[in-house]
């Protein structure tokens, strides 16, 4: 007889996972840095899924032993679930290890638009050594600060677009849901922010996000983040600023 109960169902949904951006191919340094980071918030990182972002490494043409990297990540307690920005060989290795390769973002979406183009397309901006998001103790010498220019964008940032600024990022138009804006410094959005905004992406904990109308999918400062699920619990009327205090994101209306 006909069985009327469906056996399964597919649903489309988004799944939240932190992204590990590597700036250094020294795996010992990476492991040390990971352990140091995990020690700060062991609960948060335990058994966490993780996406590995190799764009920066590949941009600097630093090769990495991908299999070894996965072993280390698993050893310290992560579940690597994806790779993006990998080169052909790394994507192949990922495939062999059953780790999905994020290609959609690569072809359709890693777009840097507007006035950023000039600074971002040629990646010689500031030949800063490797450090940031994961702090590598192997690199303790402070780099003389390069004062990065701020980036001004006047056109809307649409779904699927990404903008990266080495300094502050100032956006006069809306940022759509599905768009991602990132800055090593502060982010200002003089309009509605519906997408993802990540300030202080190289670990600057004093970076702030300012926006006229906060409806973001995600906000993050120096890696500490809140998703729309957390954000939706409260509505803000008017402009807000977001800053970091003891690893907690504070959202305050600007009055």
């Amino acid at each position, binding site marked *: 007889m006909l069985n009327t109960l469906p056996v399964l169902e597919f649903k489309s949904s988004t799944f939240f996972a932190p992204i590990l951006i590597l700036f250094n191919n020294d795996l010992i340094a990476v492991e040390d840095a990971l352990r140091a980071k995990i020690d700060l918030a062991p609960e948060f990182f335990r058994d966490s899924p993780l996406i590995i972002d190799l764009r920066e490494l590949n941009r600097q043409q630093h090769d990495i032993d991908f299999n070894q990297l996965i072993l280390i990540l698993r050893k310290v307690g992560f579940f690597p679930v994806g790779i993006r920005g990998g080169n052909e060989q790394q994507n192949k290795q990922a495939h062999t290890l059953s780790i999905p390769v994020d290609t959609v973002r690569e072809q*359709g979406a890693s777009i840097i638009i507007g006035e950023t*183009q000039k600074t971002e397309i040629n990646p010689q901006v500031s030949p800063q050594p490797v450090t940031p998001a994961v702090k590598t103790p192997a690199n303790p010498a402070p780099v003389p600060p390069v004062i990065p220019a701020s980036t001004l964008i006047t*056109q809307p940032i649409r*779904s699927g677009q990404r903008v990266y600024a080495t300094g502050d990022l100032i956006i006069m138009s809306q940022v*759509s849901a599905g768009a991602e804006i990132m800055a090593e410094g502060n982010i200002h959005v003089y309009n509605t922010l519906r997408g993802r905004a990540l300030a202080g992406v190289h670990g600057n904990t004093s970076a702030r996000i300012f926006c006229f109308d906060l409806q973001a999918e995600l906000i993050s400062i120096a890696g500490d983040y809140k998703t729309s699920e957390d954000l939706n619990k409260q509505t803000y009327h008017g402009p807000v600023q977001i800053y970091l205090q003891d690893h907690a994101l504070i959202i305050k209306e600007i009055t």
Partner: protein
Amino acid sequence: MARIIVVTSGKGGVGKTTTSAAIAMGLAKRGHKTAVIDFDVGLRNLDLILGCERRVVYDFINVINGEASLNQALIRDKNCNMLYILPASQTRDKDALTQEGVGKVLEELARDFQYVVCDSPAGIEKGANLALYFADDAFVVTNPEISSVRDSDRMLGILSSKSRRAERGEEPIKEYLLLTRYDSDRVKLGEMLSLNDVQEILSLQLLGIIPESKSVLTASNAGIPVILDEKSEAGQAYADVVARYLGEDRPHRFIDGKQGFLRRLFGGKK
């Protein structure tokens, strides 16, 4: 030099082909020599809507491959001698469309025509990207529902970054919103997004609202672009769109069902 218009959306079934046929006919009827190209390789709908499917001998890909000249492939419309159709191939696979090939065909068309309308396939892949690559103007066709608005937003991102104008750092493509299949009763019931809802997300210059209308299906079954049905609201709305695109100032209508009704009562077409 022709102005190249892409009719695009991201999502399928929103009314791109209906719109392409209507505005191409509208421009041609106003005396502008216009070509309309079907980029939807494999599906081939445009020739049906324009009622010339039985006259298709050669297609877009034949021209790209050098198997036919442009003149051999272009079909002159039966209702308007200023309108020509370049049909899509139903048999070839999509890879036959190449940027170089499309560029060459458009360049040749641009010499002889005033407007070239590119009917984009759905999706955000190669076919859609090629349809918009050479565009000067984009008609972003959107239905008042969230998934369509999202896809349009995505398409706008591609328009502003992946077009030839963007790559060359030229003046960006002019983007216009065309809200189609607008059913004001369902908007009032909250079943569909309102114009304001859509504009809050997209903030684009509104070229027109095309109401949901049975006349669209009737027209396409008859192989006559709906813009030629001057009694229908959809036909009038498309005529307004063409007029606005050409720089005329026309108030928006069909936003509200009642308004349309009153207008009809007072013979207010025009």
